[in-house]
């Protein structure tokens, strides 16, 4: 927020400093929402650590496991190849991140910094793709992937999202914000396009690039509808599809399902917790407009 330490006039300080009662009320509300929002995840984590003798169904369940065990994480792998699924999800996310970082950087730079015929048409077409909901094209997307011979493959899952038009537009915006004077100086020194992109462009768009990496990872890791349509072979499932498969087949043991959901959930939380400062920095500057 911009209620920063900078403005230290007495009046703004008194306006800023809430009364102890207000602060207490705020924390109370914050904790209440925290319980509501994070509680279900913690409860699931706890269930995944409970042994077979512990009751997970009772109306007043013990929140903490009496005999914490990682057995469920080992056993879920006997039921479905959960680590293969995790690896599959990782492969899909890896392809998507690579494609978006390279492809969107190059295209974003060209659109923002190089003048060429047709640049406005390309920009217009990119914008037009944004009104198209992804769900409305999954069918024809599937037909395309199938005709490329990639139905029921992880490449087929990863390929359509490996270069997102939204990310091209975001990189274009990021490059456009780099002051042209920087490049002009390099141009005088005889730098070519590759050198200017590498030495002047890239260092100035690292923030946007990291946001794209985080959200491409989250998007690919969490995706459900598209891999569900492309994949048939249970060995090739990604984690989300595999979890739904587990739920449908062996709904009897909630401890195993809990362990499975945690395998899908924890990497995302770690990635987001580590990277959240990039994200919220943009928010505080009023940069996220939806």
């Amino acid at each position, binding site marked *: *927020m911009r209620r920063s330490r900078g403005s230290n006039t007495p009046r703004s300080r008194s306006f800023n400093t809430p009364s102890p009662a207000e602060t207490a009320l705020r*924390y109370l509300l914050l904790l209440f929402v925290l319980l509501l929002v994070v509680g279900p995840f913690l409860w699931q984590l706890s269930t995944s650590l409970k042994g077979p003798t512990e009751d997970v169904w009772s109306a007043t369940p013990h929140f903490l496991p009496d005999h914490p065990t990682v057995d469920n994480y080992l056993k879920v792998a006997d039921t479905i190849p959960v680590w293969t699924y995790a690896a599959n999800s990782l492969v899909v996310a890896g392809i998507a991140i690579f494609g978006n970082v390279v492809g969107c950087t*190059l295209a974003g730079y060209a659109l923002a910094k190089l003048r*060429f015929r047709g640049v406005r048409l390309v920009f217009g077409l990119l914008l037009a*793709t944004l009104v198209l909901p992804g769900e409305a*094209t999954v069918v024809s997307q599937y037909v*395309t992937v199938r005709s490329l011979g990639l139905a029921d493959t992880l490449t087929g899952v990863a*390929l359509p999202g490996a*270069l997102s038009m939204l990310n091209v537009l975001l990189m274009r915006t990021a490059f456009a914000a780099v002051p042209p004077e920087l490049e002009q100086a390099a141009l005088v020194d005889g730098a070519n396009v590759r050198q200017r992109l590498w030495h002047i462009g890239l260092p100035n768009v690292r923030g946007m690039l990291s946001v794209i990496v985080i959200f491409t990872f989250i998007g690919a890791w969490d995706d459900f509808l598209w891999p569900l349509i492309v994949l048939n072979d249970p060995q090739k499932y990604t984690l989300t599809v595999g979890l739904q498969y587990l739920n449908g087949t062996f709904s009897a043991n909630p401890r195993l399902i809990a362990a499975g959901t945690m395998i899908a959930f924890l990497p995302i939380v770690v990635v987001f917790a580590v990277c959240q400062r990039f994200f919220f920095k943009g928010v505080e500057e009023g940069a996220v407009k939806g």
Partner: protein
Amino acid sequence: MTHRRWFTPWLLAGPALIWLAVFNLWPAANTVILSFTNAKPLGGGRFTGLDNYQRAFSDDQLADALLNSVIYLLICLPLLTVLPLLLALLVQRRLPGITFFRTAFYTPVVASAVVVALIWGWALNDRGLINGVLRQTGLADSPVPFLTDRWLLLLSAIALTTWKGLGYYMVIYLSALANVGRELHEAAAVDGAGALRRFLHVTLPGVRPTMVLVSVLISVSSLRVFSELYVLSNGTGGPGGRDMSVVMLIQMYSRGFTGHLGYASALSLLLFLITLGPMLLLTRLNRKAA
């Protein structure tokens, strides 16, 4: 900026242009083409004129899905327009530890809808936590059929979508609040305006454009619902398959021996046209504001 070779920009934008053509423009066009054929997941694809559209008109399941979408929208829209704004006001003030709360409130957003639906599906189960609590407190004698009743299942999915969306729209509001003039707030406070009046006369007008944007985003996303309904109903679409969304129908018709890609494409086109409504409304409102 200058570049020595005329094709440099095309080289840089090349991959993005290929993806634009193959995975965005062509699928959009192909959806229209396919919708006039009887293409099946396992071959076929004869031109059948308006057959698919005629079929859509008399499809009871589609009528149910559209009704579900309307209910989804009517409930999600007010809840997700107001609650995240209140949440944003709660986490706006820089109290110690506020970054932790902001990050925590965003976790349901980064979690996969499958993970979230599995957790809630278990809690809403006949023997689950929520029914257990209801029975212990004497609010219900027999288990409430949250997941097996046509309307309760829909409401459960709506609750889940709302819960998962809180953090997402909170961040958008947080970004907007950062841009609402602090000076105005102070001036109003000096003039003796209480917290409620400051909210009504300073904050609310300041975030009104964002509220419009948020409600459009909510409308579009409640028309695109898939994972919540799919996982909560275990892929069945509830009793009699009446708890489906349009996207669930698209998924259903895009697979297997009973699949019908032509009909799924007609439904996709329908989905696109429906989501266009809120977006056109937004551009209209924006133009009026400007």
